[in-house]
């Protein structure tokens, strides 16, 4: 293995420090007994306790979780179907357009996605709230889900599906008994990914939500404008934990699929 010179190591340490020290500080200060954000006043879990009595924050968190759950499920389901269409049906007419449209939200600036969806909802005279945010999140989550599932399907041995058909399974039964059991780690990973993306989205949610549907990131953002409190640090720490858990399980699922596939 090539050894790194001292200069490179320094650059690496500074870079990682820049990325992760603030997060570590945030986590550390969530256990700060002092009310002042910048002064260490001893270890305490006080702020986690007070979090539990902050009803607006809890409401927002519960809303975010429900929203992430529903939109991730939609995104994983639709993304899987889109991936199947792209991988399985060869060069159907409009394939390029279809794949472009599925994947466009991945590269589209969030402000534009949010604004255009807002305009759509206003024009269609839809009451904005939980469902409009869900639809918006499912829209961009589906692009990520599609990419993840597509990669899995590309390495899929099609003769397995043909064998199932040969043994008397209809196309639908083949999908449930052969295709899905073999690609489910990718579908689950896609779900996790869409879940975390929805959970921490601020921009698109701000555009597409309505009164009475304030998500956790929106609540935190507005609280910050009144000054950072240790309570927010505690909430963020919990969120980091949740997201890390989801991302790690997603990557484990994908790794498992590689082992099973090889």
């Amino acid at each position, binding site marked *: 293995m090539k050894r790194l010179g001292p200069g490179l190591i320094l650059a690496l340490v500074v870079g990682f420090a820049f990325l992760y020290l603030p997060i570590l500080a945030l986590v550390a200060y969530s256990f700060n007994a002092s009310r002042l954000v910048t002064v260490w006043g001893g270890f305490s879990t006080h702020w986690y306790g007070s979090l539990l009595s902050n009803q607006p924050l809890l409401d927002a968190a519960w809303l975010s979780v429900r929203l992430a759950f529903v939109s991730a499920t939609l995104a994983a389901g639709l993304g899987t179907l889109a991936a199947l269409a792209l991988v399985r049906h060869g060069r159907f007419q409009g394939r390029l357009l279809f794949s472009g449209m599925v994947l466009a939200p991945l590269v589209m600036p969030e402000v534009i996605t949010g604004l255009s969806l807002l305009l759509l909802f206003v024009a269609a005279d839809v009451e904005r709230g939980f469902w409009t945010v869900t639809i918006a999140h499912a829209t961009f989550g589906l692009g990520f889900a599609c990419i993840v599932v597509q990669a899995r399907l590309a390495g899929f041995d099609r*003769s397995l599906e*043909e064998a199932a*058909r*040969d*043994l*008397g*399974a209809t196309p639908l039964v083949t999908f449930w008994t052969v295709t899905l059991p073999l690609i489910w780690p990718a579908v689950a990973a896609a779900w996790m990914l869409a879940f975390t993306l929805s959970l921490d989205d601020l921009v698109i949610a701000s555009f597409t939500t309505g009164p009475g549907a304030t998500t956790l990131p929106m609540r935190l953002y507005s609280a910050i404008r009144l000054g950072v409190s240790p309570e927010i640090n505690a909430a963020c720490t919990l969120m980091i934990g949740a997201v890390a858990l989801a991302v790690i399980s997603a990557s484990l699922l994908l790794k498992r699929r590689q082992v099973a596939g090889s």
Partner: protein
Amino acid sequence: MRKASPGSLRRAFQPWDDTNAKPIIEFRGVTKRFGAVTAVCDVSLSLYPREFFALLGPSGCGKTTLMRMLAGFETPDEGQILLDGVDITAVPPHLRPVNMMFQSYALFPHLSVADNIAYGLKREGLPRAEIARRVEEMLALVKLDGLGRRKPDQLSGGQRQRVALARALAKRPKLLLLDEPMAALDRKLREATQFELMDLQSKLGTTFMVVTHDQDEAMTMSDRMAVMDQGRLVQIGPPDVIYEAPANRYVAEFVGDINILEGRVASIEGDLVKVETGITGTVELDEERPTLAIGAPVLIGLRPEKIELSHDEPAGDLNKVAGEIWDIGYLGDVTMVQVMVGGDQGQLLKVALTNRTRRAARPFAWEDQVWLSWDVEAGLVLPP
């Protein structure tokens, strides 16, 4: 009373010569194109119940495509496929009483061996107890008792092949398609499996269609075989007919080794044809071909094992020619000798010698001057 050997039963089995026999499968002028490639071209073929049929041909000649059309994975561009006299061209794969054993086996990796075998039975909606009974029966049939709970990746290649076979047979299909069933097995296992397959087939009475590009395999197992070339069936017939009376040069060269001599018909006296070849002089053949005309160009096919090799000029009115040994290839059971006839710019002919004695006693050596001779019945006339 003497028990009839399976071989003698086999010999009596010739439904293709019986005008009353009803074919189970009939291809009528079937053509399949992939873009510019014509994978299967105007194929007409009948398979009969209980027949063991082998499809032989080089890579890419359309064997798999022909089979996939039978299973329902490809639709013919032209022509019809009939099963028991009914057109099945438009029937989807899951409704056809035809099962296929895939080239790659295609075992479901997430299911146990028993569940793999049960898969087709579950789709039929059979009661549980019946499924369990049939699975046990199939496992016993392919000699895998006790391995039902394993996953496919915990099996050896030969065991996987048996599971694939059991899975395809479990539904008791009218026709079983096997796409290069033994490509992944070593030679010993392959030979053992060939006989097991034949045994199984005669036990079950299922019609088998096997794809292979191994001619020994095709000849050993089949009642009839077809030789394919670029999407066309060149010849269909029992293995001995294909070998001893090939329809043309392609079949003659594809099945077994053969020497080809070019010449012109010099005379025809009843069923004795004399052919003048530049290299070996006049060759006499016992061949009844009313279509042959004097002076017409023909090819003579001569199998290496039908040629005698000697140091002295053989007596009698055999076909004979002198030559020099250029190469000797020792293959164990036989020795292949290449003899140059007609001078240095002549033609190399292959002669197969059966090694009846140990190697030390080998009678021929490089650069020996030798005589080749063969019977009038040994050679065959092929269209040019």
